[in-house]
């Protein structure tokens, strides 16, 4: 499965969330077909809650990992 990574460090909500939602919208078919995973790197703590919750309401699954200096949020088809 292909993983597309987006570095949105330096952005805070809501702009970081809007960026994530935009990419989810763009890649919605690939996500549903489970051929791609989106990986967002963020240093904004709020995104850890807002991005996974928004993804869940749209029918996607997500995983959050604590990286060296940021959080990695992966969104993929459920």
């Amino acid at each position, binding site marked *: 499965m292909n993983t597309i990574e987006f570095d949105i460090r330096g952005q805070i909500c*809501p702009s970081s969330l809007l960026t994530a939602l935009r990419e989810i919208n763009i890649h919605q078919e690939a996500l549903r077909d489970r051929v791609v995973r989106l990986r967002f790197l963020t240093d904004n703590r709020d995104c850890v809650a807002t991005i996974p919750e928004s993804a869940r309401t749209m*029918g996607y699954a997500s995983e959050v990992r604590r990286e060296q200096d940021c959080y990695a949020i992966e969104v993929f088809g459920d």
Partner: protein
Amino acid sequence: MTEPADRTGGGAAATEAATAAEVRRLRDRHERAMGYIREKINELLKVIGTAPLRPEELDDETLIGLDPIGIVAGSFRQVLAHLNRTNEQLRFAREELQAIFDCAGLGILVIDRDQRIVACNAKFREQFGMGNADVVGHCCREVVCQTDRPDRPCPFMHTLSTGEAYRCPDWIVGGRHYDIVETAVRNQEGEVTGSVLVYSDISERFASEEALRRSEERYRDLFENTNDLIFSTRADGSIEYVNASWCATLGYSQEEAERLSLLDLVHPACDAECRERLQALLRGEGGGRVHAMLIAKNGRKVILEGDVSLERASGKSRGVRGIFRDITDSQTLEEELRRREKLESVGLLAGGIAHDFNNILTAVLGNISLAQAAAAPEDAVHARLAEAEKATLAARRLTQQLLTFSKGGSPVKRLASVAQLVEEQTVFACRGSGIFCQVKTDPALWTVEVDEGQIGQAVNNLVLNAVQAMDGNGTVLVSADNVTLGPQDDPLLPRGRFVRITVRDNGCGIERENLQRMFDPYFTTKPGGSGLGLAVTYSIVKQHGGQIRVDSKIGSGSTFTVYLPASDEALPPPENSAPAPQAGKGRILVMDDELIVREIAAAMLQELGYEVESVTNGEAAIARYELARAQGQPFSAVIMDLTVPGGMGGKEAVGELRSRDPACRVLVSSGYSNDPVMADFAGYGFCGVISKPYRLAELGAALKAAMGTTPAPQ
């Protein structure tokens, strides 16, 4: 509208002012529009659940370039699509659940906290005969239990009040049995709002279980109350279960039995074939009829006969089941019968041999007597003759023993006390053996009807047997006492009053396998033993209506016990008997089919001073007797052989003679010394008796005695 004066100077200013105003208007409009856009974007962001836009983060141009409304709208489309999919799944799940609810083979009832029916499925309606009646909203008490009594406690309130699941394994409604499980239904806050009850109709299962329970009861009743011994073992032979009869017969409790192996119980005397058969069964090799000998807890031998079958699981032997019957008593009786039959057949043979042998001995002993009479006492030949007579008398004793168990060898009984007889025979048998004998007899010993010679011989044999068992050391204890046997005693012994004679030694004891055969004729374990002693003793005791028992333990010794039926009569006072005269005068007729007997009898009678004639059978005797009477030379006495093969014997001839001459004096003589006629000669018309072989003095005494008597009337 502007004035014309202002068109030149004031017109530019006016235009500039108007432009400025337009710019302000447009700026205000832009700001309002952006404010509106930010406000709506913030509303959308709030719906999404994130923070509002901050002006410092995104300026208007960046905001417009980002197109947040488009982004959020796109996201909402996805949210909506996801909700639609979820709703579709929920609808499908609901329909699936409803189908399960309706088609379930179990009755399902949903009630609220007040026990009002919320829903129920078709099976529930069928179970309680509701048809299509509208029961929703009704209290389940009215519909299911058909009672409105609130005082009757409902166990299903437990779940409604506590939230805990509850199961009632046997709830009876309308005569049917239900297994009911109740589970709480909760709202989002976790509060109990009702419950679901699942009804499983177990009436058939309950009936089956009840039938099975009754069937088990019947089988258990049979199992525990049967007289047969029922058992089951595991593959290694360890006992799995036994029934009450098994426990009672072998003396073990159920718990003790379960710690035993079947092979532990096999009696040491059980033959190798039986033992191998049981081991083969445990190995899984066949089943069928089994004859086994087990040992009870108290050491008693238990003979069993029955059938066993293998219990298999997955093709392997799991153990053995069996039903046995205790045949110990019948087997013992059969052995007793076989022993009797054996004795009778051997006795018949022995009787014939003894009879013939006695005829020969009559000639031998008679000639010895005559030779002794002819020889001077100081002559060396006299001593040799005495030895020959001694040996011949020993041979006569042997024939007496043989005759004891010959057919018809009834003892010549008379009322007696065996006390003195027991003492005499014990002392006599122990003499010279080095064995110490102790005799104890009850002073008030009951009398018995016995042949003293035979009983003396029996006691002598038992004491001799005890002496020989002790290898020159030890003590023989002999006692005679009175005993009354009742139901509490050995079942093989008769009930009643008995004189008990006990001979106990502390010798080597008797091997278990030999106990079975020790009374068999010619069975002996002693080098040089005849095997007749105990057989004769057994025969004597049996012919007196008594019983003989033996208990023995290897290394500790043996105890023989004889039971003789006691008499109610007291002993008559002793009589003084005068010695019989030897010589006599007169004519004697001898009838015997054996030439040697006729010849020696004639010679002996002539030696005693009598005139003798002899004949070979009864007919000839009658004819010769009648002829002598007719010629005026009657016979003083007739000595007749009891039986004559192929002709008239003395038993028949005496009647004929007495009918012709009631005063005739007839003596009976026979090698069958134990024949009933010999015991009761007067009853058969004889005046006297003389057993073959006989010595000169015995013949003379018997003849004199007979000639001095008056014949009993016919």
